[in-house]
């Protein structure tokens, strides 16, 4: 028991110390631009958790903004992963197709996805489809690239033994090609999740009428710095939440593998 406490403390003390130092310094400085952590925490509760009890205290802003941010992120990212895996697997199975699309995929991977926002607005206008389009189109490339590479790199002997035990085409994909490429596919999906979160916030900061990014911007215009920070914290929390969920899925999906994860 004592050992566990010592261990936890050895990991946590620096974070705690930094928060404490920030608290003291910022209180002493006492500027409305740099609220101490305690005031940000207050603003966080005020902005997001001041609603009625039957909604678990979620505020109207929480329902409207966090809800729409997470909805866009989930839909856009799911699109990116599903379409990306299908396209990547198709390209990875044929050398010619891989050659045909390699420059396009490379260009896609290298394009800073945020610059898609002006294009998306030109193309779709400012509405709910715009962020979803940006998230899906911007984060699909790492999935395609890694799925393609992973499938192309599936061990020849694995494929041979799949045929040797008489697996049909569909079963070969289901039981051999996809599981063999899975670690690479997940590596791509993880990179693309990071991009998707950034794009969610960026597209809301750039132009929108709802979402956590919109709330950050709104509080910035109102010069309510604590609430602006509360928005930043919420955006980070959404990113961490999705990453944690992904981590859980990854651990489950790769259970039993000799080398887990990337």
């Amino acid at each position, binding site marked *: 028991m004592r050992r566990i406490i010592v261990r936890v403390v050895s990991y946590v003390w620096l974070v705690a110390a930094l928060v404490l130092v920030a608290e003291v310094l910022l209180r002493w400085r006492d500027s409305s631009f740099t609220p101490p952590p305690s005031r940000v925490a207050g603003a966080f509760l005020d902005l997001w958790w001041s609603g009625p009890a039957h909604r678990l205290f979620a505020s109207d802003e929480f329902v409207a903004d966090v809800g729409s941010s997470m909805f866009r992120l989930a839909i856009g990212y799911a699109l990116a992963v599903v379409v990306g895996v299908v396209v990547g697997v198709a390209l990875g199975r044929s050398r010619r197709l891989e050659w045909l699309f390699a420059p396009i995929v490379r260009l896609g991977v290298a394009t800073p996805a945020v610059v898609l926002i002006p294009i998306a607005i030109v193309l779709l206008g400012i509405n709910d489809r715009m962020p979803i389009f940006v998230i899906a189109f911007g984060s699909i490339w790492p999935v395609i690239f890694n799925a393609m590479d992973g499938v192309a790199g599936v*061990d020849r*002997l*694995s494929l*041979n*033994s799949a*045929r*040797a*035990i*008489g*697996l*049909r085409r569909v*079963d070969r994909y289901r*039981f*051999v090609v996809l*599981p*063999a490429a*899975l670690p690479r596919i997940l590596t791509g999906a993880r990179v693309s999740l990071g991009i998707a979160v950034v794009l969610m916030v960026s597209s809301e900061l750039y132009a929108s009428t709802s979402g956590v990014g919109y709330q950050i911007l709104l509080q910035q215009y109102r010069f309510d710095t604590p609430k602006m920070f509360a928005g930043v914290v919420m955006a980070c929390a959404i990113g961490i939440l999705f990453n944690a969920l992904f981590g859980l899925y990854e651990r489950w999906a*790769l259970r*039993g*593998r*000799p080398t887990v994860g990337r």
Partner: protein
Amino acid sequence: MSDAGTDSAALVVEGLTKTYTTNGVDHLAIEKVDLHVDAGEFVSIVGPSGSGKTTLLNCISGLLRPSGGQVRTFGTPIGDGPSEDMAIVFQDYSRSLFPWLTVERNIGLPMRRTGASRASVASAVDSLLEAVGLPRSVIGKYPWQLSGGMQQRVAIARALINKPKILLMDEPFASVDAQTRISLEDLTLRVWREWNKSVLFITHDIDEAVYLSDRVVVLSKGPSTVKANVDVELPRDRDQILTKQEPLFGKLRSEVMDLVMGQ
């Protein structure tokens, strides 16, 4: 010599030829190989390294498309991919088993996809584990958690689950230690006898070939052709020590050795 080409044979290979094209240059790997395995026969193929043994096996199994010739199992020409009658055991067990599946699912996979019920797959897996001498406790383990010899036993069990009549084995024991190899050889003989299989066994080890087989087919250095068929008329109850002490064993061994080395 038995009469090649009769359709009573389990496996017949006629005029099998394989040509590779690399960098625009044609390269002949296998040239007009004829061989056959009778039903219930144990045949080994030996040849010097680089004699294209694995290529030959891949062509026979249908994993590679031959450039010429024909392969028939029980009179039926094989098409694209291995026929239902045959199963293959590869040398590299660590790659031929699927690392993302447990032992149970690895063995059961070929049967599962035929639409067999969960229970019948499970009981088949159980009896196979016993047949290949693995404890039931390995069922939930992943291949990498087992020793090399145990992994190869799993691979053999997987090959057997759909009750193939012909077993193709590609240097299956080349990468296990000597003791494990001995027990795996005897396991192979037991499976062959008790389950009445026909076996085509590829190896570079002459002792192994003579010890296991009814007949040894000697390949020449590439391009592969059949150099000789050597009948092994040792009594069938073979024993790792006694059989290898017999004068006939020594004689056959040097005969095959001469054929392999004397290019």
